[in-house]
């Protein structure tokens, strides 16, 4: 029996030796970061904050940026190259492109912001650090939800981390989202750093988002307070004299620069001397963190995206005499963008084989056309005669360019609009300071000049003045708003105006000051929502899709969609030949883009709502209020 004891003991030891606890099967992945090991510290969470800052880049930079889409379909410009031009037929839920990409990307950012909010609670570190991480998360939620609800209307509200394959999202009302975001942003501004290195989020940026949310919600006195808070931020002030990289150098392409040149010169938004910047996205041609290596295609591509196709459509003969020449190729083209060519307006290169004009302007593709309202109406009058924003070296008209084909009878002479066969694509003003960006990485002989690397603003102090002006207008204090508008005007060399400012005055000034800095369409939708919420001018939330301020303003200002004098659809047809002719058409419900079909289809366990007017709306369920 002694032996039996021995056996039993051995047996028990043997069986016990391998017995496992639940801990044994916990996965260990020592070489990969996971949320559970990286987002547990301030530094790790900050790594996500930095990525969120970086991913603001597609908002304003690169090919097909969000900014471009926010102009096309506003009162300032229309899309020329590609679609959708006829919104009634082409702006549909199944459309790919930006309608889907913007949704997907915005929610990617929101999921990360929400992750920060959730992780901030579990993170190790001081209370101050936890508060700050939460504040960053709230900032990005606020930023992107403002962009989302002014693009798609009612959307799902997600404010905490989604860490499982959730398939039953539901739509919330815009109002619910506004209220929640005001709450979160009010918390965020308490804990965002008062001052932050350039490229990072500071408290003033938080106040900018909060101000817009307050305006949208109709809390104008709060918007007045928060925009004043931005203006009064220590260290922030409008740049009124020259500064930055162009000072003390001679750039033959930019003769006689002024402060409005300096503000937008490629390196200056992030300049330490720039006291006007609130939030900037950074780029660099040589660093791994630049757009060379990730996304964007490298560089800002401003010239490709926003410049006129000046090298096409210009002929020796007047337009009436050369109809169809561009198509059948029999006309004599008188401008050229290729490797040889004629003079530019300024002597910048001794190499006679280089096409000077393209070196000066770059190679735009005429992707969008500015409206008459933008290029002419807002600048008319003596007050703007000396406006730096609308004169050389910051703004040029087409006749600053000359015919550069040496065999042309018009060689060296200024371009003539009457000779242009396509004044939509090939004839447009050139906002030089904001669109022409040299590319230091361009190879000599590469004339496909798309536009180089630059830093750019997400928020700039000038906008805070215009937000405050708008708040005052809404509050019925238009007379006080005038002084804020004049601060902006005077700095640019335009004359003051006296009297009482209106919403139109504010929007005119925003157009003049904030080209490629404001998401114009979203700002228009914001006002439309507020007017409807306050039931002003006969608008109401119930009929937002049928009658809204956005559509009505388009009818007054966008001369491509509308006969702006009559305020009626113009049915203007444009195209480059028989098959590709499209009519510019839109309807009031286009105030919101369609919710992408894929977003609705992939959410298989609940119904996501579609906007009125689009296919799928009939399946809607009441949104969460």
């Amino acid at each position, binding site marked *: 029996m002694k032996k039996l004891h021995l*056996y039993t003991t051995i047996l028990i030891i043997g069986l016990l030796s*391998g017995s496992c606890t639940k801990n044994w099967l916990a*996965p260990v992945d020592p070489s*990969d970061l996971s949320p559970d090991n990286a987002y547990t510290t301030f530094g790790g969470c900050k790594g996500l904050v930095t990525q969120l800052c970086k991913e603001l880049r597609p908002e304003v930079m690169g090919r097909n940026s969000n900014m471009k889409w926010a102009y096309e379909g506003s009162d300032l410009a229309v899309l020329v190259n590609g679609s959708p031009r006829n919104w009634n037929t082409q702006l549909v839920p199944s459309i790919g492109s930006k309608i889907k990409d913007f949704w997907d990307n915005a929610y990617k950012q929101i999921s990360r912001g929400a992750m920060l909010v959730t992780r901030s609670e579990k993170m190790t570190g001081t209370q101050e650090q936890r508060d700050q991480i939460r504040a960053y998360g709230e900032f990005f939620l606020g930023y992107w939800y403002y962009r989302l609800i002014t693009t798609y209307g009612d959307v799902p509200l997600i404010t905490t981390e989604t860490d499982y394959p*959730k398939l039953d999202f539901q739509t919330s009302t815009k109002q619910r989202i506004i209220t929640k975001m005001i709450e979160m942003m009010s918390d965020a501004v308490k804990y965002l750093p008062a001052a932050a290195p350039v490229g990072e989020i500071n408290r003033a940026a938080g106040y900018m988002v909060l101000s817009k949310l307050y305006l949208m919600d109709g809390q104008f006195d709060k918007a007045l307070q928060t925009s004043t808070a931005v203006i009064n931020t220590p260290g922030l002030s409008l740049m009124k004299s020259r500064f930055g990289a162009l000072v003390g150098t001679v750039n033959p392409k930019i003769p006689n620069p002024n402060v409005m040149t300096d503000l937008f010169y490629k390196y200056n938004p992030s300049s330490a001397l720039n006291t006007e910047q609130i939030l900037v996205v950074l780029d660099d041609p040589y660093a791994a*963190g630049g757009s060379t290596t990730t996304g964007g295609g490298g560089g800002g591509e401003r010239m490709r995206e926003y410049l006129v196709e000046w090298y096409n459509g210009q002929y020796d003969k007047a337009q009436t005499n050369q109809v169809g020449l561009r198509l059948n190729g029999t006309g004599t083209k008188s401008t050229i963008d290729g490797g040889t060519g004629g003079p530019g307006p300024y002597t910048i290169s001794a190499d006679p084989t280089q096409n000077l004009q393209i070196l000066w302007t770059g190679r735009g593709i005429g992707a969008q056309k500015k409206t008459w309202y933008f290029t002419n109406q807002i600048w008319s009058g003596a007050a703007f005669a000396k406006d730096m924003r609308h004169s050389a070296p910051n703004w040029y008209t087409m006749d600053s360019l000359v015919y550069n084909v040496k065999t042309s009878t018009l060689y060296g002479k200024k371009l003539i609009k009457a000779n242009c066969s396509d004044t939509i694509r090939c004839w447009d003003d050139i906002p030089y300071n904001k669109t022409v960006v040299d590319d230091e990485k361009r190879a000599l002989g590469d004339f496909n000049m798309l536009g180089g690397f630059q830093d750019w603003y997400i928020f700039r102090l000038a906008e805070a003045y215009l937000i405050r002006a708008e708040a005052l207008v809404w509050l019925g204090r238009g007379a006080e708003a005038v002084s804020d508008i004049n601060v902006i005007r005077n700095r640019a060399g335009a004359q003051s105006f006296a009297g009482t400012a209106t919403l139109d005055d504010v929007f005119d000034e925003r157009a003049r000051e904030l080209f490629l800095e404001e998401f114009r369409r979203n700002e228009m939708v914001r006002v439309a929502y507020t007017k409807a919420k306050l039931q002003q001018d006969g608008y109401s939330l119930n009929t937002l899709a049928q009658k809204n301020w956005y559509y009505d303003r388009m009818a007054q200002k966008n001369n491509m969609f509308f006969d702006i004098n009559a305020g009626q659809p113009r049915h203007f047809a444009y195209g480059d030949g028989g098959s590709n002719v499209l009519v510019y058409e839109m309807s009031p419900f286009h105030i919101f883009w369609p919710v992408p079909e894929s*977003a609705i289809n992939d*959410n298989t366990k609940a119904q996501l709502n579609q906007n009125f007017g689009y296919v799928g709306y009939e399946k809607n369920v009441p949104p969460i209020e």
Partner: protein
Amino acid sequence: MRQTSNYIFSITILLFVLCQLKPAQQVFAQSKAQTITVKGIVTAPDGSVLNGASVTDKKTSKTTATDAKGQFSITVEDNAELEFSMVGYATQTAHVNKRTVINISMIENIAKLDELVVIGYGTKKKSDVTGAVSQVSMAKVATQQSISIADYLRGSIAGLNVQRSASLSGQTSFEIRGQTSLSASSQPLIIVDGMIYNGSINDINPNDVETVSVLKDASSAAVYGASAAAGVINITTKQGKSEKPTIRLDAKTSVSILQRKPEVYNVDGYLKMRSDKLIGNSSINTTMPEYYSNPYQLQNVSLSTWLAYSGAPQTSDPTEVWLSRLNLAPSEKMNYYNHNSIDWLDQVFRTGSIQDYNLSISGKSKGWNYYWSAGYLGNKGVVVNSKYQNIRSRINLSNNITKYLELGVRAGISTTNADGQPADWAKAYDNSPLGNMYNPDGTYTWYPNGDIIARNPMGQTQFDTYNRNTVLTGSFFAKIKLPYGFRFESSFNNHVQFREQNQYRPSYTIEGSASKGLATRDYLRQYDWSLENVLYWDKTYNNIHRFNLTLMQSSAKWMQYNTTATASQFTTSEALGWHNLAMGMVAANTSKDQYDTKASYLGRLDYGLMDRYMVTLTMRRDGYSAFGQNNPWANFPAAAVAWRISKENFMKHVDWISNLKLRASYGKNGNSNIGRYTALAGLGTDYYLDGNKQNVVTIYPTSMGNNTLQWEETLASNLGLDLGILDNRINFTVELYNMQTTNMLIDRTLPTLTGYSKVKANLGRVDNKGLEFTTNTLNVNNKNFKWTTDITFSLNRNNIKHLYGNYTNITDSAGHVIGTQELDDPTNGWYIGHSIDQVYGYNIIGVWQTSEAAQASALGFTPGDYKTYKAPGNNSYSRSDYQWIGYTKPRYRIGINNMMTIFKNFQLQFMIRSEWGHVKNADELAVGSYADRVSQMKLPYWTQDNNSNEWGKLGAKKTGSIYKNASFVRLENVSLSYTLPQAWAKTISLPEAPRVFFNVDNVYCWDHWQYWDVETKAPTPTTFTFGINATL
């Protein structure tokens, strides 16, 4: 299940027919018995005496055994029935019938019902096996030459699919039955001596292997639960067998000759090809006949007219004009004038050789059992500079310390050297016969004819490559005998791998030039261990109830550490290469460590009733760290039954049936190859900038975790029938199976609202069903001629039943929704209701001929381009023209192995293997896009004069891919061996006569594939081996 009931029905009918057969013989009349002593000699079929055969009186169970001279003596009643049995031979019965001398010649039992089959956690007599298990003995292939264990097994087990490989290290992958997964690995689990083996099969020396058994059905594999869905391969290494030490030497030496290779052009052919390419579809032959022809062989134009075509002065050198028209490079022209040419195949291919030497010592004495071996395998391939070597050694040692305790170790080491950096043989076909192999300074040219499309095939042989692998395995075990039929075994198993892959690409090679020298060091260390405790209980009650209970508990951990360091810009000196990375100016390092842990429990009960009815019940529970943490545990139950019908009384008189067994099993297996960290949320890193434009590291989420992620699950049923006829001289085994794999690991589309577009999830279902058929026959069994044949046949049918569960509406012609249909995944080529390997796409049906120029032109093609099927009415190609083109996996596989023994000492063995019914992509055959710049494989391309409907013209356009029939019949090997006479062996004091043999591997392949080997699509040599097996 309906299918299963069909099987059962057919088998019932068969049994019914069998039972109608009447007894062939009358039973002897009984009379009063007297006791007598019976003597005799038991011999083998070849006449040699058998030592140790047992002789049993069936009535009294009295038993004796034959001695070294094969003699026996037993006292029984004079009417007794004696049973003669011995492992490996059919049991025979003799009626004493008052005889005192009974000599018996045993008949070899090729059914081997007594053989112990390795089943996973133990062994079982073949006759007791309930599942679908096949076992082969490696002794059978001792006269063949292959590289890996997989190669030796090819064709010998129905349902075990081993493709021929062109790799120098042999084939390393298997597939059992069908593909049961869309994205997880379908590699079977490998078990070595009972332990899960996480290494390469190449680290096990085939010479050390005693048997390989393959667990094919769910029930037999269920003992390995979550890892078993793709089947299990069980390798058992050798042990000592006799008291006397056995020293065995196996030496083989081979030459490998590349018999099958596409040709390259000689100079004339090359120039003709260029000319054909340049002519193309142009009308130059009508406007300027013979424009590209050799000016000295003009048929219909005068030389002066010919020269005038291109405005060349009449005084110019016609050859120069001609070669210029053909766009030859200056160096090519020079070689043409100097009559220099090069046959690139001679440069990249050679006669290869294999050396395979193995020595082992084994035996048992005084409680010790030992086996030690050392082996060297060196394979110099047919591609110049290719080389593979390994040295492997093994020691299996155990000792019975006491009656109840046995301790032992099984350890092995394998070191592999794959330093060879072979020539890039494919480039040999791109290169011009007028190209230059060397620069004037003796170094290799980069581009032999100056065109960047055709690199010098020898260029990469200049890399300094160091590719070594060392694997150590060690298993320590204790076996304890306990009372009441219990046994306890505990083992601790270790597997360590060190792998170094270092390379230097000098700056004077193309690949190293941009980085001015590129050095890489890749070091990997892997260590995994497992601890296993098994309790066995074996008990038989009254010779009627047999119980075997197995209880197992184990835990295991796997760890891998990988470091990669690279350096470039060796601008100062390249002398030290990869040995000194510090000489490079720019360095980059990465590292990756991975762990996983497992825990398992197993219970198995075997019950046998009267050797007739057998039941096996299995339950395995597996925990794995790779599963989602909501539930890391999985259960895998299985059950099997077997009925040995031939043991039933009603079968006793069916004499011609010696064995009849019906088996059925059903169970669940898992595939845990879902990726070690797939269930976890992943983060990536990137860079952004600070205000000073310095890089800042960012961290962002890349993938969503899935806490509910599970193993892939296969539910399988198997129905088997074993039939032995005429004393088991003819044996059949039929297996029918049906497998349903669900919970497959695939990407589920997510609403992007989550921040992610997809997540790995368990979705979908794939079904496999199939038939396996094995026969072993002893065709002739004479003294001077014995002939056995083994035939294996298998087919597997595979069907995707569900994918992501996304449905689309089906509408009738009026647009009304009449139902829904699950969506296919065309991106991956997965279509609901079709096989995973079924190809759907544009179908190339021939070549556009001159007479069809108008039709071709309407679709954007010209004569000589490949013609793709187009549905009637379509104006251009679109998805509606897609067709089902075929299957890429064989529809049927067959292996036939014949073994003939002639005059006792000569043995002839040959294997024929065939796979058929499948197609293979052959886009490589659409050649000639750059035929005006470089050379190419010699093929009978389409021209105006050669209106082939199979081969397009040079640079032919095509829509879709070329698929060709890949069916084949291959004479896998022929082996002739001669065993030296025993007497001769005795004179030089050898315990056994040595055997010498000659083997040809990959003898010939019959197929429709006009290209490289149909299985490998790469140089695959025929190997001629001379070898010797000797016991010293």
